[in-house]
């Protein structure tokens, strides 16, 4: 029997089949290998991460100027002011801008993220003659429209918001009568009665007869806070319908030694009520712990947050809270005077903190600067909080006595990489490189594109608006919370915990913190390269806890989340400007190509 030859077509088919099997097997092994590696690293494939900011104040029409009369040296009153903030006063979905300073202030309406125009006169934002410093905003009458407070020297002005079309100055009658030098202010619901209360920082006693300057090596320089008696916090309880009563002593805030500059609220001890940190200039800081009924006890010294890590008093300026290490506990950051650590206090639980600004590499390069405004933000949307700071000296003639220092100083951006912060100031766009006499610093998404933009006050110039550009397409999700009948409408104090593949992030709804600033109340979560979240939970100010259907959430969108209802997607607006393509390659950005954050323990 002769063997029939195998047809050529069949031989080719067999060879191709074997080849395919080999390739598939190898690919399978590869996938397995990758999966094992990923499991080991707790991360999905790497992607480049970075941030880029464009300075757009001029092109968007923010034309306010802080100081118009050149005069040097300046006294302590003239050197401290310059507030700025984001708020959506007409609730059209676009963040508007407020700026205030010694010579008044201005309110700008956001024209769909493209430009800002001064709010029409009919809105009624007019400040009586005075010297103004900071701003704060919150919905005080639970009507859905935020009220606006402007703090100042012996004059605090509260504007009631009538449906977003008219701001009415109600200060003479509303009960917020403070003849102190008002600085930063915090709106928060101290007793969880659904009405938002006010804590007003106050600086020093200073009047026209106070000494202003001293001479050092032939140069006249400004007297610092130690030359003046401190003024103290004022607490105003909201009685409803925008009426307030001062209850500083009853609430326990009278114990501060004064010279308050920055105030920031947070439930740092995770017990369901709002606590407060107060940064004081050359005085111990105060950590006011809430007993749940709106009475506060200062635990600054016990907690380790009153002083620097070396036990020294520091010139506390701005302050903010954020869970920088994603451990579910809010940590505290305080900006300070020159040669003092910009103190980052890690929350260790049990009411105890450790100052870790050296360990996290946050302070070494910025010791010479005088820090003011400070915010946590996820600039590169990698799921870890980064830090931005506005800096500027408090002696306008400092360069005459110290050639190595200057009145104007650069802003700073630190990106979180691993367990450290990396100074990315010089690698994230020209906006951060310009030196300014920085004071306020506010954070908010001005163009609704899912990244955090920054607004800084330059005491010797115009506002600095740093627009975050989408760099490497990292994913995000945002929430606008609306409280129910038992809590405040703006849901101030609500806490959202989001779990995604690379860890767990925790944020709280706040409009306070930093220095003389007010911020976007929406919550933004960076998701690195992940286009899904595993779980999202909110703890409302009422105490109620709700979980969202994570599978139903789509990344790269904002959601309106009302208490008692599922989150509802807000349609994304089309950008009305062309984002600037950053002239950088991934490799040039600090930490570019970094792995996503390690999974939570």
């Amino acid at each position, binding site marked *: 029997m002769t063997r029939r030859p195998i047809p050529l077509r069949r031989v080719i088919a067999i060879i191709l089949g074997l080849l395919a099997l080999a390739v598939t097997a190898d690919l399978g092994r590869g996938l397995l290998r990758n999966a094992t590696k990923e499991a080991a690293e707790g991360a999905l494939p790497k992607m480049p991460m970075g941030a880029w900011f464009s300075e757009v104040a001029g092109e968007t029409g923010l034309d306010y100027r802080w100081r118009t009369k050149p005069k040097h040296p300046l006294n302590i009153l003239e050197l401290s002011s310059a507030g700025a903030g984001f708020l959506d006063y007409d609730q059209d979905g676009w963040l508007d801008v407020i700026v205030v300073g010694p010579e008044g202030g201005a309110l700008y309406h956001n024209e769909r993220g493209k430009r800002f125009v001064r709010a029409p006169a009919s809105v009624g934002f007019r400040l009586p003659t005075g010297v103004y410093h900071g701003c704060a905003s919150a919905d005080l009458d639970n009507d859905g429209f935020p009220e606006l407070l402007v703090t100042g020297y012996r004059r605090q002005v509260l504007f009631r918001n009538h449906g977003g079309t008219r701001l009415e100055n109600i200060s003479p009658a509303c009960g917020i009568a403070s003849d102190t030098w008002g600085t930063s202010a915090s709106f928060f619901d101290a007793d969880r009665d659904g009405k938002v209360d006010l804590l007003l920082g106050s600086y020093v006693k200073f009047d026209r007869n106070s000494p202003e300057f001293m001479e050092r090596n032939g140069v006249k320089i400004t007297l610092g806070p130690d030359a003046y008696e401190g003024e103290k916090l004022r607490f105003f309880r909201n009685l409803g319908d925008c009426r307030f009563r001062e209850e500083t002593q009853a609430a326990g805030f009278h114990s501060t030694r004064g010279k308050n500059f920055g105030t920031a609220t947070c439930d740092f001890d995770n017990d369901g009520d709002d606590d407060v940190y107060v940064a004081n200039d050359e005085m111990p800081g105060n950590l006011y712990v809430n007993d749940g009924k709106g009475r506060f006890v200062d635990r600054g010294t016990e907690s380790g947050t009153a002083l620097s*890590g070396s036990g020294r008093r520091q010139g506390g300026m701005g302050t903010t809270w954020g869970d920088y290490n994603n451990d579910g506990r809010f940590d505290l950051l305080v900006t300070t005077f020159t040669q003092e650590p910009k103190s980052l206090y890690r929350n260790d639980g049990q009411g105890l903190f450790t100052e870790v600004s050296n360990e996290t590499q946050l302070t070494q390069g910025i010791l010479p600067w005088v820090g003011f405004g400070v915010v946590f933000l996820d600039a590169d949307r990698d799921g870890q909080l980064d830090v931005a700071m506005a800096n500027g000296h408090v002696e306008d003639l400092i360069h005459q006595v110290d050639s190595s220092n200057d009145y104007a100083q650069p802003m700073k951006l630190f990106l979180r990489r691993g367990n450290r912060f990396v100074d990315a100031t010089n690698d994230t766009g020209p906006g951060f490189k310009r030196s300014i006499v920085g004071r306020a610093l506010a954070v908010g998404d001005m163009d609704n594109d899912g990244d955090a933009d920054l607004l800084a006050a330059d005491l010797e110039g115009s506002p600095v608006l740093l627009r975050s550009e989408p760099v490497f397409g990292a994913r995000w999700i945002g929430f606008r919370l609306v409280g129910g009948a038992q809590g405040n409408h703006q849901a101030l104090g609500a806490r959202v915990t989001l779990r995604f593949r690379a860890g767990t992030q925790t944020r709280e709804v706040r409009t306070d913190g930093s220095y003389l600033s007010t911020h976007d109340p929406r919550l933004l979560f960076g998701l690195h390269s992940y286009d899904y979240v595993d779980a999202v939970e909110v703890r409302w100010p009422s105490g109620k806890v709700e979980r969202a259907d994570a599978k139903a959430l789509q990344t790269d969108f904002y959601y309106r989340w009302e208490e008692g209802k599922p989150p509802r997607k807000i349609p994304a607006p089309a950008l009305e400007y062309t984002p600037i393509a950053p002239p950088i390659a991934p490799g040039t950005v600090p930490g570019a190509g970094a792995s996503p954050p390690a999974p939570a323990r």
Partner: protein
Amino acid sequence: MPLEQLAQQAADHPADREMLVLLAERSLAQREPARAEEAMRLLLEKDPGDARAWLLRSRAELDQNHLPQAYASVQVAKPLAAGNPEVPYVLGQILERQGDEQEAEARYRETVALDPTHTGARLELARFALAHRHYGPAREHLEAILKRIPTHVIALELLSNTLRFQGELPAAEKLARRATVLAPRSSRAWNALALVLQARALPAPLVEAEAAFRKVLELDSESADAHTQLGRLLFNRGDYRAAIRELESALRIHGLNRLPYPLLMQCYRRVGEPAKAAALQREYEKINDMDLATAPLEYSIYAMPDNVVLRLRLARLYATYGRPDLARDQVERVLRINPRQGDALRMKTEYDRTPSASKKPE
């Protein structure tokens, strides 16, 4: 030649002026100012117009803390030694010791203007600049010293501290290391190295920082600052028991120093001893109260050093807090400004009678 031998030779040759000057200089260098003063007394008996002798006598008096005498001697030297940089330099030192820092600083500037290579004056100016947190001028003076004397250990140490404050950690570390090589027995050099390594705060430098702090304590076991810093390093590492040991040592050495208290309280809370923490806090609040109460007046005096009213007010405040030693300093300063100030004279008598709350320096 040993000092005793030199003294014998000077006694054997009383007419030899150079021998007396050499004896005075060597005595000052070897911290025997009384012997130097006596040598110059002999010389000035022979020649009251010898400017060099008046200056050396002034220095000898200064070293014995005889400030009015030192001041008088340098005033005699002044017209005899016009243009001599040592005159403003010694005057600056006397004024500084008297608490007149602004005037002292001006005299050091005058010294450097007369002699830009004057190491002592530049060092003092660098110290003043560091105290005012003016790191640019401090750096300028220290670099000028090191340009002339690259092995000047104190300048190396101070420049390392300056650069550390300016955030230039690698350069600061290099200088501190050089200082420890040049002066391996200098606790200050090791301290500078330890501080810069601590500031770097990376794992390896932190290990070395701990060793450097321990070296400081080996050389100077009474360094409360090194104990405190080491305590802080151990605290941040989570080694609370070890931190307690160091911080308690710091307080044993310097009980009125408030810096170790907050960390020590934290340590006690973290090791489950809240009662100890609370007791410590009460003690701390007392010290802190005084610090916070006196700070505004101290600052105002810093701005207006000749304001008698402020100084007397500060003296009374110090006395209220049980610190007549500090009160006395202020009163003495007032009496230098106005020797017949009635309140100051009364207060001085009172404070001289009152024992201090603590003999330990603040």
